[in-house]
């Protein structure tokens, strides 16, 4: 290949522009190929932002689709223009161009055009912003609290949500259970650092900032399970802080509320009874099980604030009524049972979800690994040294150094908490 450097006196020798053009066309083809692939790729991604399943996500989708289309068209116009120019005006030994400095109309025209176009985008944008901020039509309130590295949900006493309202507070974690077709207002808070609550199919994300309460509307069109992830970087195990929204139809949601507020049921199975004692000895200082009492009949109140920086640990009263654990990262259900629930038809989902986790469906391996050595499964600041250097407080669950039989007993007990 000849060198591409013209000496100043000689007319410049150009470097096979035809080949360059061909490559450029090739590049354009590749880009188009990518766009085509875009249309057909990753079907049913659980967190797809272009598959709204609720009113708020749909408002966003209605706004963003035209914007993406317009941007795509403008992009193609620019590529076409540059491609044409590169082909049309490559150096074929033509005369040197006259040294003009441009025409103002060619500047001002596009400025006015683009301003008009942006106005066309700006007006609906502002309208949607205010529409999404509306809280006056709320039918149900849930306090959503982020902490390293899981979400807690508190249903305050309120007249709405369920038939007859919610008469005593419910505390759960990981999976947010809501009635479908209902305007739910999440009041988002944080116990430690900034997190962000994001269920892409239901709405955009909203940060959980310590010291503040931010609201986020969530409404699901149909019963089903909707995945999300914490999206504000929150430290070591940010990648393992997930959540789901389980939307149930109203009748099943009412059942769920009744179940969550039912009095404590002592285990009857002997293995589970042993497990209850093991649980009390090893887990209860952080993990609350509502209504559980010690042998003297005194209620056991957990005190996570003495052990954990965020001052909270998941409430396990009804662990087996949800189907993920440890920041909604691992399944409590075996893959087969999980598929049945997660991919159920909307009309069947509520019923299946309320069945919770049975012994046969329990994904015992992950749960066992977790209880054996939680920080090995999900990195946390909870080694003895880390706790010691932090005034005795850990971030996340420490390795409790339990023996295998203790772990079995605890699982035997937990599986009864539905």
């Amino acid at each position, binding site marked *: 290949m000849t060198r591409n450097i013209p000496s100043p006196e000689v007319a410049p020798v150009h470097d096979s522009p035809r080949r360059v053009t061909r490559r450029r066309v090739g590049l354009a083809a590749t880009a188009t190929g*990518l766009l085509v692939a875009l249309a057909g*790729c990753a079907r049913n991604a659980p967190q797809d932002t272009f598959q709204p399943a609720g009113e708020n996500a749909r408002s966003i989708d209605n706004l963003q689709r035209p914007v993406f289309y317009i941007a795509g068209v403008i992009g193609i116009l*620019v590529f076409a223009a540059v491609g044409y120019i590169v082909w049309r005006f490559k150096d074929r030994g033509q005369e040197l161009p006259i040294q003009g*400095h441009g025409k103002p109309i060619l*500047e001002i025209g596009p400025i006015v055009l683009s301003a008009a176009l942006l106005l066309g985008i700006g007006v609906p944008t502002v309208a949607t912003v205010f529409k999404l901020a509306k809280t006056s039509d709320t039918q149900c309130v849930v306090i959503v609290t982020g902490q390293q590295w899981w979400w807690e949900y508190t249903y305050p006493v309120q007249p709405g949500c369920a038939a007859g309202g919610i008469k005593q507070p419910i505390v759960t974690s990981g999976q947010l259970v809501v009635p479908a077709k209902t305007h739910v207002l999440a009041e988002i808070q944080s116990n430690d650092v900034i997190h962000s609550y994001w269920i892409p199919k239901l709405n955009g994300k*909203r940060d959980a900032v310590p010291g*503040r309460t931010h609201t986020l509307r969530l409404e699901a069109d149909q019963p089903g399970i909707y995945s999300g*992830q914490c999206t504000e*970087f929150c430290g070591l195990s940010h990648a393992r802080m997930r959540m789901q929204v389980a939307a149930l139809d109203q009748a099943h949601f009412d059942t769920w509320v009744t179940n969550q507020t039912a009095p404590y049921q002592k285990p009857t199975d002997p293995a589970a009874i042993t497990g209850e004692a093991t649980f009390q000895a090893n887990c209860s200082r952080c993990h609350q099980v509502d209504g559980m009492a010690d042998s003297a009949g005194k209620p056991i109140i957990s005190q996570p604030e003495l052990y954990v920086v965020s001052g909270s640990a998941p409430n396990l009263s009804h662990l087996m009524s949800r189907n993920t654990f440890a920041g909604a990262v691992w399944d409590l259900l075996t893959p087969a049972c999980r598929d049945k629930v997660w991919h159920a038809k909307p009309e069947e989902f509520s019923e299946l979800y309320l069945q919770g986790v049975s012994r046969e469906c329990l994904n015992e391996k992950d749960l066992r690994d977790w209880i054996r050595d939680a920080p090995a499964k999900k990195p946390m600041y909870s080694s003895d040294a880390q706790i010691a250097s932090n005034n005795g407080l850990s971030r996340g669950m420490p390795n409790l150094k339990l023996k295998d039989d203790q772990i079995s007993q605890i699982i035997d007990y937990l599986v009864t908490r539905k």
Partner: protein
Amino acid sequence: MAIIERPSTTPAVAGSAPSFVGPADAYGAFRRPVTSRGWRSWVFTVDHKKLGIMYGVVAFCFFLVGGLEALLIRTQLAAPDNTVLSAGTYNQMFTMHATTMIFLFVMPMVSGFANYMVPLQIGARDVAFPRLNAFGFWCFLVGGIFLNTSWFLGGAADGGWFMYQPNASHLFSPSHGVDYWALGVQITGIASLTGAINLIVTIINMRAPGMTMWKMPIFTWMVLVVQFLLVFSLPVITVALFLLTFSRVFGGQFFNVQAGADPLLWQHLFWIFGHPEVYILILPSFGIVSEVLPVFSRKPLFGYKFVAFSGAAIGFVGFGVWAHHMFASGLGPLSVAVFSVGTMMIAIPTGVKIINWTLTMWGGKLRFTTAMLFAIGLVIEFTIGGLSGVTHAVSPSDTQQTDTYYIVAHFHYVLFGGAIFGLFAGFYYWWPKIFGKLLNERIGKWNFWLMVIGMNLTFGPMHMIGLQGQPRRMVVWPQNLTGDGLFNLGFWNKVATVGSYILGLGVLTFVWNVTRTHLLRKGEVAPLDPWDARTLEWMTSNPPKEHNFDAIPTVHEVDEFFHRKYEEVETDHGVRLVKTRSAEEILADQEAHADAHIHMPSPSYWPVVLAVGLVIVAYGVIYSVLLAVVGALITLGASFAWALEPSTADPSDFDPPAGTPGKELANV
């Protein structure tokens, strides 16, 4: 042989004390260094060209470090639940990747270009404050090294380059990493701030006769705009970093909710700096392609004034849009609406630039050199990044996109396809000017195509990955969120990883090109005017003499050099452009009329000592008050020595000795 500042023998103000301190009456302990060879000529230099080269070399080394960090990140993300990096290391890796690329590569690389080119482009012999210039470089170097020593001293910063509070507080990030980060960025910030003041004064005051603001080369224009951005935005991050350091080291409560503070304060401070920072990174590259496109289209820049104005407009509006980084942080609908519309406005001046670059090529005579390819590449890739930027301005849509890979895709198209492509265009375009040798064009083409293909494969799929729900800053992604079909998110993650290796290969091709040209001495000696260029920096030898121009040119046109070479001639077929003089003739003419009194600044010991003092203070803040005191004493001592050293070297050091006219000077 060195050309050194010669003292004026007349007082600057009649009747007052002489304005200079001669070697005889100096309070300084040392004479000025005068060595023109060996390492001392680099370490103590105040020459803007040597400093420019040092900026470039060091910044490129950091580019390789940042690139290695990027490749490790992509390797970790090649497969679901991968275990190449631990969660802690991964968090450090992405924090330092961003910090390195922004503060230790793009900004200092731009400083390198600006240092080298701006005085040449405006027909000056150096910058206004040469010692300050050297100080800036040394601050950058020691700050960058300081930052990276944290890897070996307990772990690097792990809070993300945005260091949101309280996650980056001592409680939640107990290693010294964030301390290193805050102090290191603080020190490199000094480099940018002093550089900004220096270049503003230089550009405003030291332009060649006849060069009005509207005759300045467009790169100089963009550099000027960027320096104003730095002057206004850096103090904000300086304050924020002090608050962060005081919070972490001395128990300050600036962001502590329990003490009544609001962590959003940090976000506002950070992004009031952080958003103009984006334009600090990109505008110089806009300047570079606005030089390269006209040269290789052989036409003037279309709408020169519009391009300059739009640069200034981007800079100005850029200060009013910071909260678009915070659309999800709960600002309230009114603020969000205002910042949405403000952000959309940025698209207008940016679009103006794209249109002007396109119309510059229209009707031209295009030569596809490597520099030109990178410039065209910038126009294309930046357009993609700009358009995805418009989609974020739509704030409801942004609440879906923010903190996903879609954002990662967006800003890599802007910063890699924009800023870095611009810098590579600059490398190939100005290499012969700076080093007197041409980079190989054939390898250059390989360099370009590998980088273009690599970057599109790396960052293109990230659009889809992000829009289909993969958040960023995740050490792992799980299989069960990737969706169905062959083209699921796992597939695209693999494509991105492969793309990143191709991109790395592209960068290595550049390294090979440089190695081959210089170390293997296969580079072709550059002709005087290899590209038939248009601006003043080409109206001198390659590389330029220490005093840049034998005679400071008088400027009449925007593209002064071009108009000295070409004239429009009436012919039978209308007006034609005819080359009437060669670059050699123009240069010979300059030499024949060399200036009599060439005035060059003397080297100095103190900038480097002062910078080293600062970094000792920084280590002291982390480890020991005593060390900090030692560092402070060195800093203080160096400041006094700086102030009191003689303003020139000893007369015996002059070359040629005082009394001879400057013509010989011009021929060294």
